[in-house]
């Protein structure tokens, strides 16, 4: 038996090598012994040293192998661990950048970043969620662009329909991420409403219709809206003025006022309307004055006519007096109705004077016919018997009844 350390032959049952003093592991040695005895007998003395060294290496190789593997495996795993960890970090960073980019509205870039991250970490559900959301956002953005184009092409009803659909769709998501879309949709909504009203403006012809649009506009807080608002207001003013002037031409002053006031309740304190209102007031006063004057004149003339009818309706056209050979006095004449009404029962009152111009007698005689139409003449005659002298007859008075 030999020492496993130095190769010195050992005494039987010795516990330590006499050469190097190493402790003999008897159990192991015993098994090896039987193999080694034969081989070592054949070894040459020169190669004994090398063989001893080789034998030494071979002896430690079984121990080395697991140790080295352990080192290899641990270092490999460590490197892998850190690599994977940093990949995680990269993915997280990518995701974060993507989210930020998305929130800034650059969905395409965000999608690219997320896809890149997903290629490294395919199983990361957050990425999938985000990609889904961003795909939706891209889709919504496209729809919005389409709506925008329709708005530009003034196809408002189409745009409005699409917007309503989009609104329904967006409403299904409960993420704050989509809030900007609400803002954009509201904006588009305003554009559509304003655009629609602008388009309809030409067809609106009454103040009421325009006022209706005005109340829609009033709920829209937008520059665009205020431009349309002033457009509507100026149209209200125009319609109000046109209508009022039309009424004015027809002397319908109350209605003119009404129309102007109606316009003024929207176009508050509008100078044109106020000026027109003043003009209507003046014209109304002038109209009423003129009418009053005409009627007063008419009444005056009617009064004059009446006076004439009552006091000067009868004109004596011709009047003759002669005394015949028997000494009787004949008087005759014609009268004319110069009144504007028919007169009846015209009676001539006359006085007879003698040759000394002394008043002798009075008499009355009726005109024939009984009724005289305006312009019609009638005649009268009378006889005074036994006058027997020259004399004169004078018409004192004529009386009549007016019909």
């Amino acid at each position, binding site marked *: 038996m030999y020492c496993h350390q130095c190769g010195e032959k050992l005494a039987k049952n010795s516990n330590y090598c006499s050469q190097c003093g190493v402790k003999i592991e008897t159990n192991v040695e015993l098994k090896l012994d039987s193999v080694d005895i034969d081989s070592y007998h054949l070894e040459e003395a020169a190669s004994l040293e090398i063989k001893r060294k080789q034998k030494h290496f071979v002896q430690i190789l079984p121990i080395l192998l697991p140790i080295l593997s352990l080192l290899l*495996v641990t270092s490999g795993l460590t490197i892998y661990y850190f690599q994977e960890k940093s990949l995680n970090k990269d993915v997280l960073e990518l995701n974060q950048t993507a989210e930020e980019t998305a929130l800034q509205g650059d969905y395409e870039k965000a999608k690219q970043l997320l896809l890149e991250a997903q290629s490294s970490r395919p199983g990361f559900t957050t990425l999938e969620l985000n990609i889904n959301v961003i795909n939706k956002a891209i889709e919504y953005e496209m729809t919005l662009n389409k709506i925008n184009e329709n708005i530009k092409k003034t196809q408002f009803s189409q745009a409005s329909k699409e917007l309503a659909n989009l609104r329904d769709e967006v409403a299904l998501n409960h993420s704050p991420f989509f809030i900007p879309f609400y803002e954009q949709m509201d904006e588009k909504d305003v554009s559509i409403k304003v655009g629609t009203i602008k388009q309809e403006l030409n067809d609106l012809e009454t103040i009421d219709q325009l006022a209706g649009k005005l*109340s829609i506009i009033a709920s829209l807080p937008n520059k665009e809206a205020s431009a349309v608002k002033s457009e509507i207001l100026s149209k209200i003013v125009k319609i109000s003025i046109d209508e009022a002037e039309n009424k004015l031409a027809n002397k319908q002053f109350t209605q003119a006022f009404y129309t102007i006031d109606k316009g003024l309740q929207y176009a508050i304190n509008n100078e044109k309307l106020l000026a027109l209102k003043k003009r209507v007031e003046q014209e109304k006063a002038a109209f*009423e004055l003129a009418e009053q004057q005409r009627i007063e004149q008419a009444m005056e003339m009617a009064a004059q006519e009446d006076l004439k009818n009552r006091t000067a309706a009868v004109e004596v056209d011709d009047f003759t007096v002669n005394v015949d050979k028997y000494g009787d006095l004949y008087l005759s004449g014609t009268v004319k109705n110069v009144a504007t009404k028919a007169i009846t029962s015209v009676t001539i009152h006359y006085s007879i004077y003698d040759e000394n111009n002394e008043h002798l007698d009075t008499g009355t005689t009726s005109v024939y016919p009984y009724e005289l139409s305006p312009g019609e003449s009638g005649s009268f005659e009378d006889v005074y018997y036994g006058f027997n002298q020259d004399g004169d007859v004078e018409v004192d008075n004529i009386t009549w009844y007016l019909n």
Partner: protein
Amino acid sequence: MKQWIISIVSTLLIFGGGFYAFLFLKEDIPKQLTASSNLVTEKDATIPNQQETKDFKEIIHQTQKLVVKIELEDGSLGSGFLYNDKGDIVTNAHVVTNAKEVKVKSTDSKEFTGKVIGISNDTDIAIVRVPGLEKVEPLKISRSRKAEIGDEVLALGSPLGFQNTVTTGIISGLDRDLNIDPFDYDDVYQISAPIAPGNSGGPLIDRKTGEVLGINSAASNQGTIGFSIPIVDVLPLIEAWSETPMTTLPNVTYKAEESLYEGTDSVGDYAEYVIYYFYESLNLGDYVTAYSLLGSSWQSTTSYEHFRKGYINTTAVFVEDITVTTEGDSANVIALISAEERNKDSSKSANYKVTYELSYENDQLKIISGKGETLE
């Protein structure tokens, strides 16, 4: 040999363990990626639209303070409510018709003077500015929500002059259209809360939120049916007046056509009446009245003298037949008349067909033009 076996076995074990660890890491590290998406959250992010529900008595108390009684010099009464911090009070136009200044009484019996700064002549809405109520926190207005049938409401005001009256009811109808001269009420709420004269201009309050839904404006004589103008519909008008007070107030008057004659006669009926009246006046010899029925342009071109002469030989006129056609506010009258006319010695009867055009002039139906032709 034994050494080797142990060595190889342990090496294999190490590699095995390593491989297992690798697999574990490969599985586990991606799993360590936990980041909640900032884009997707389960939280409901839509703006909270929950309506605040307030205590019933609290609402009444809060609202009452801002409801005022409006008195006019002629003693007529109405209600109103404060709607902004400029001291502007919303009321009905019919409450402050043709008044420039009104007396405003608040619930705590303070009296103010208010100036009408905006009034409509076709919508029953007006604004009174009360400088004394400036900076007072106004009533909340329901700016976007329209009431629905069945909404519980309160009506506040001073019915018959009893200040601080609250009545309750529901919205019992929507989109009612009515016309109480001279105002048009379009798409107004019908309410079951009893209201009486004096309630006019008072607010209709949402019982749940305490917000103003409408302006109580009219009531029916029978039953408890009231009408309230939706505030949303008139808000643009009100706000425009608050921003730009009117310098001159419109004359709120009754519309011309209706004021002219009682009842629901049409312009055609009235035109017929005018023509009969015209001939009656002629028959009576009242030529001035007949002349006054002519329109201004006819009068201007035909003097009374001339007009009178035209009828000098006419003793009597009879309207035999009359047909009226109307077009808007004007009417065309075709009449067959027989006239007794004097000749030099005899009187004869002549038939005419006359055509008159009548229309309104300064609120009076006048005979604008006419022509006649003799019939054989």
